[in-house]
């Protein structure tokens, strides 16, 4: 029975990946080649519910089968389908967003996953962004880096997914998306402010804005 339900979950996962690939023709660009083994933290810009599935669909199978997204408990534990998808199919690490009534420490929950050798996907802006630029990062990324100083943090820029399915919309449009994996950064003992700025700059460096495109002209 357990094997059967695991097969259903894995097929659903591949089905979702296949749908996202067909919808977006997603292209992954690795500035540093992927490392399939070991725990890493992938941190990405966040503008659409489907951001996680896009990263998922763009990862090689060896990483995809292990990686776990960090998601908000309040959102993913409501309804019928969402908890099943979050727990069984996405294998999400659910954390509390509110400052009060916290019965577990989210950093410890994430660190436990990393120590078990599984990579994480986090969205350090905290919530989906509706503007064109990148919001300031929440401090969770810093606390996680301080707690796990040997873990590499890989910036991941998601392009166009916000237009495929923006916040507040549930009809996706089939635009082409790309996912860029940048060079990893690690905790270097710097202050919270400095580390978050460094991480944010590493992510912004991957954004294909008009000016950097201009620089690519031949």
């Amino acid at each position, binding site marked *: 029975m357990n094997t059967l339900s695991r097969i259903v979950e894995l097929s659903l996962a591949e089905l979702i990946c296949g749908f996202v690939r067909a919808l977006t023709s997603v292209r992954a660009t690795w500035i540093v080649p992927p490392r399939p083994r070991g725990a890493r933290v992938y941190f990405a810009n966040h503008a659409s519910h489907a951001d996680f599935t896009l990263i998922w669909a763009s990862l090689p199978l060896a990483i995809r089968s292990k990686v776990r997204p960090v998601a908000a408990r309040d959102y993913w534990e409501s309804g019928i389908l969402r908890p099943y998808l979050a727990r069984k199919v996405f294998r999400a690490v659910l954390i509390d967003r509110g400052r009060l009534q916290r019965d577990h420490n989210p950093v410890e929950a994430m660190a436990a996953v990393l120590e078990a050798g599984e990579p994480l996907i986090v969205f350090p802006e905290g919530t989906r962004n509706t503007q064109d630029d990148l919001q300031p990062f929440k401090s969770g990324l810093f606390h996680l880096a301080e707690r796990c100083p040997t873990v590499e943090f890989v910036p991941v820029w998601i392009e166009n997914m916000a237009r495929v399915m*923006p916040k507040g919309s549930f*009809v996706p449009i089939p635009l*082409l998306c790309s996912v860029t994996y940048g060079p990893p950064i690690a905790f270097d003992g710097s202050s919270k402010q400095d580390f978050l700025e460094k991480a944010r700059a590493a992510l912004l460096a991957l954004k294909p804005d008009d000016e950097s495109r201009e620089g690519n002209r031949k």
Partner: protein
Amino acid sequence: MIPQVLPLFTGIFGVLLLASLIGASLRWKLGPGNSVVGNLNARIIAWWWMVGLLLGAFSLGKAGLVLLFLFVSFQGLREFLSLTYTRRGDHRALVGLFFILLPLQYWLVYSNWYGLFSILIPVYGFLLLPTVSVLSQDSTRFLERTSKVQWGAMLAIYCLSHVPALLNLRIPGHEEAGPLLVVFLMLVVQGSDVLQYVWGKLFGRHRVSPEISPSKTWEGLIGGVLSSSALGAALHGFTPFLWWQAGLIALIINLMGFFGGLVLSAIKRDRGVKDWGDLIEGHGGMLDRVDSLSFAAPIFFHVIRFWWT
């Protein structure tokens, strides 16, 4: 439709066979490391696929051709819009573009409703797309966003839908000419692209527009357009046209095709990309392949509609 177009396709397959042989011998002579020859061979292989798909569409009749171009428009539209700036407020307009205007336009081609076919996007799309966007209360770069959505609709849907719409033209005395007109248009325009590439690679010295498309040369343009127009004149036996009419029409659509390629190059250059996508190995995206066709098809359609029907 196959019996009508088979002679032309036999000729095309013959040319492709010759091209593949030349490609293989160049590879043998210059080695597999040569990137120009590698790209040439990738292009030739992609041509086999594209010609095969076109023939497959013809074998399914009008529905096949309409569905093939529905896909071409769909892919062109997503490539175009993926590279243009829109905002959250345009999402509903884009949903309408992909899921209403695109299938509706091709249904109008299939059902031969010419009146609505010719105004659906230039009139209703033009007015309703910004109407849908404005309801989301976001005026940031509004005219720019609206223009881009309208441009995508006109170029990728409206212009390209004129290719299968050729099947609806009824020329007195040549009632069955539709499929041959489609092959004539595509053969001459794509032939012009290929011949410009060949002439340019062999003799190209002087650039036509270094600011926009550095790979286009006067030698390639003149040689390609003239030889492809001669090809059009030579094919007049398959068409309702006299030889000089076929040659003149071929010249017009070749020039339109050239300018289509130039205009879309300007857009790519402005966006800082080399290709629209990577769908077709060696060629780039769908729009890289059909840029010239999108400019040539409506003019070809209306020249025939005005003077021959």
